[in-house]
């Protein structure tokens, strides 16, 4: 029997017995995703939209409760938008720009993300994770109604797996007993404690941070502004080393207290104790209800590689970071979009299996960048030695008065997607004077067009973006079609497209991957170079 490990916010895929459970021969699936969390569902959706049938197994019957990841980045929303559910997330989410940093009672400084205009999606939204997940599952239901083959089986827990060379054999436990399945490809999105990783005996090395964080989500109709407030050494009673106040939808406020290592969890989770802390922070007259509370610890670590033959790991199963910077779920969504198009090409026989190694190469690179950033933030917020405390407090003191010290204040560097500089699939940059932000390896930056936005105009496959110059309408290399997107000055009402893609250049041609990362760019169409870049980007060189 499958045991429940957590309570549900939404029951969305209740267990139903399927014919495969009584099949004399194990059912064979091209793709099985284990874990119906946000990364598993995003991966499954992306693959299904590319025409691949996907089976998702989850050991629960819906989405776990608790706000958990609350901060979703622009790139994450762009990915969700491509999958069809980004707009619903933005509509429900809270958009914020201003952050204030305090040290004790003193306000050190405030910052404004001042989001650049000319993007369809905001820089960040705050949204409780269960809503984020529910919008993804809603999209799955919509795609099922459109006839796409994507199936979620609740209370189907994988208990064993065996690599048979040409497939992965899975043992699955259900309320009606166990059954077997065969998968050509297995995608493990089963979370930080990944049972699949354990079953395969794979390591998950990194640094443990000895700290406990108390999360209290409180519901109140208070006058606090929609800002991120962060305290170093908060002045409220028993608030610990740092504290965070951040608004979510539905009049919910996220409060984080950093409690340290030697704590009594039971005692700290006692409602009276939590209320004493929250009262001290919000003031005695604040009226609120405790919506959800939790204590968590974290580690910064990753698997050595994310591909092991026919098994790929994604999201928290592959890498874990500290919460500072919102780099967990946001980077997992980038795993999903990186993997989906590659696996689709491999299954179609249009790219060699080696292309999947580039998934590991690129996302390990991304994980390292995220781990580095979140580790630095953690070290700044929680200095581990006397001298690092001294420097940290010196920075905070100087930041009051002097602008130079403010960029050194690190309460978390917010998630931005990484650029795959110099990696195997990344091609040449021949565009003299081209902007650095759209160089090969970078994710495309959105820009307003005469009608709509650039990222919406990119297709689901490879795109040849031409700016003020000519190229064939379509072309193919080794069976892979490339669609042209021809834009000129008339399509660029604000000048943002030119600033972001031409820079000092007058014309440009960009080859863009299905996950909207730039492969290579040139001042004019060069057929030989484009074909070579496309082969490189699909693992054929």
């Amino acid at each position: 029997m499958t045991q429940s490990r957590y309570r549900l916010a939404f029951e969305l895929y209740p267990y139903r017995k399927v014919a495969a459970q009584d099949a004399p021969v194990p059912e064979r699936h091209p793709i099985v995703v284990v874990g119906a969390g946000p990364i598993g569902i995003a991966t499954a959706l992306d693959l299904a939209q590319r025409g691949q049938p996907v089976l998702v197994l989850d050991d629960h019957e819906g989405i776990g409760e608790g706000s958990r990841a609350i901060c979703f980045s622009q790139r994450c929303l762009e990915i969700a938008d491509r999958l069809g559910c980004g707009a619903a997330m933005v509509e429900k989410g809270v958009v914020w720009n201003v952050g204030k940093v305090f040290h004790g009672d003193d306000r050190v400084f405030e910052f404004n993300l001042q989001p650049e205009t000319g993007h369809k999606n905001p820089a960040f939204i705050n949204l409780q994770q269960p809503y984020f997940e529910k919008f993804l599952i809603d999209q799955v239901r919509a795609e099922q109604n459109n006839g796409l083959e994507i199936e979620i089986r609740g209370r189907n827990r994988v208990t064993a797996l065996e690599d048979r060379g040409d497939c992965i054999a899975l043992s699955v436990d259900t309320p009606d007993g166990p059954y077997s399945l065969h998968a050509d490809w297995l995608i493990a999105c089963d979370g930080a404690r990944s049972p699949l990783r354990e079953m395969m005996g794979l390591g998950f090395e990194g640094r443990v941070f000895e700290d406990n964080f108390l999360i209290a989500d409180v519901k109140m109709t208070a006058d606090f502004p929609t800002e991120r407030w962060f305290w170093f050494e908060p002045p409220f009673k028993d608030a610990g080393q740092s504290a965070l106040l951040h608004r979510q939808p539905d009049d919910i406020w996220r409060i984080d207290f950093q409690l340290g290592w030697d704590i009594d969890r039971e005692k700290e989770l006692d409602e009276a104790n939590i209320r004493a802390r929250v009262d001290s922070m919000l003031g005695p007259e604040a009226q609120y209800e405790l919506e959800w509370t939790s204590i968590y610890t974290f580690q910064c670590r990753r698997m050595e590689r994310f591909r092991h033959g026919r098994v790929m790991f994604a999201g928290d199963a592959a890498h874990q970071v500290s919460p500072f910077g919102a780099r967990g779920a946001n980077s997992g969504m980038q795993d999903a979009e990186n993997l989906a198009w590659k696996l689709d090409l491999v299954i179609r026989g249009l790219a060699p299996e080696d292309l999947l190694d580039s998934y590991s190469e690129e996302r390990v690179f991304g994980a390292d960048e995220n781990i580095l950033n979140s580790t630095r933030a953690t070290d700044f917020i929680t200095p581990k030695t006397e001298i690092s405390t001294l420097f940290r407090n010196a920075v905070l003191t100087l930041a009051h008065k002097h602008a130079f010290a403010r960029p050194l204040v690190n309460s978390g560097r917010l998630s931005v997607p990484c650029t795959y500089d110099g990696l195997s699939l990344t091609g040449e940059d021949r565009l003299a004077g081209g902007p650095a932000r759209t160089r090969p390896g970078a994710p495309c930056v959105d820009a307003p067009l005469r009608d709509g936005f650039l990222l919406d105009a990119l297709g689901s496959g490879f795109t040849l973006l031409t700016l003020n110059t000519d190229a064939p309408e379509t072309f193919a290399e080794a069976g892979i079609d490339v669609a042209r997107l021809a834009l000129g000055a008339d399509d660029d009402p604000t000048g943002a497209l030119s600033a972001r893609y031409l820079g000092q250049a007058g014309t440009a041609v960009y080859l863009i991957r299905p996950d909207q990362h730039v492969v290579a760019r040139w001042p004019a169409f060069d057929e030989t170079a484009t074909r070579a870049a496309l082969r490189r980007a699909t693992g054929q060189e």
Partner: protein
Amino acid sequence: MALILQPNIPDQDGFYQELLAAHDGLGKAESDALNARLILILCNHIGDREVIAAALKAAK
């Protein structure tokens, strides 16, 4: 030249990490001595008494 009090160091987080890494494994007295040597080296590099005087004032 006036004392620069606007951000002036590229890759601030990398710089900060490097600065603290120099103190890894040092006791209080050794760290203090390292800081003193570092200040003297940087002052010599600046070489301009007016800038150093302004920096001393900003740090107080």
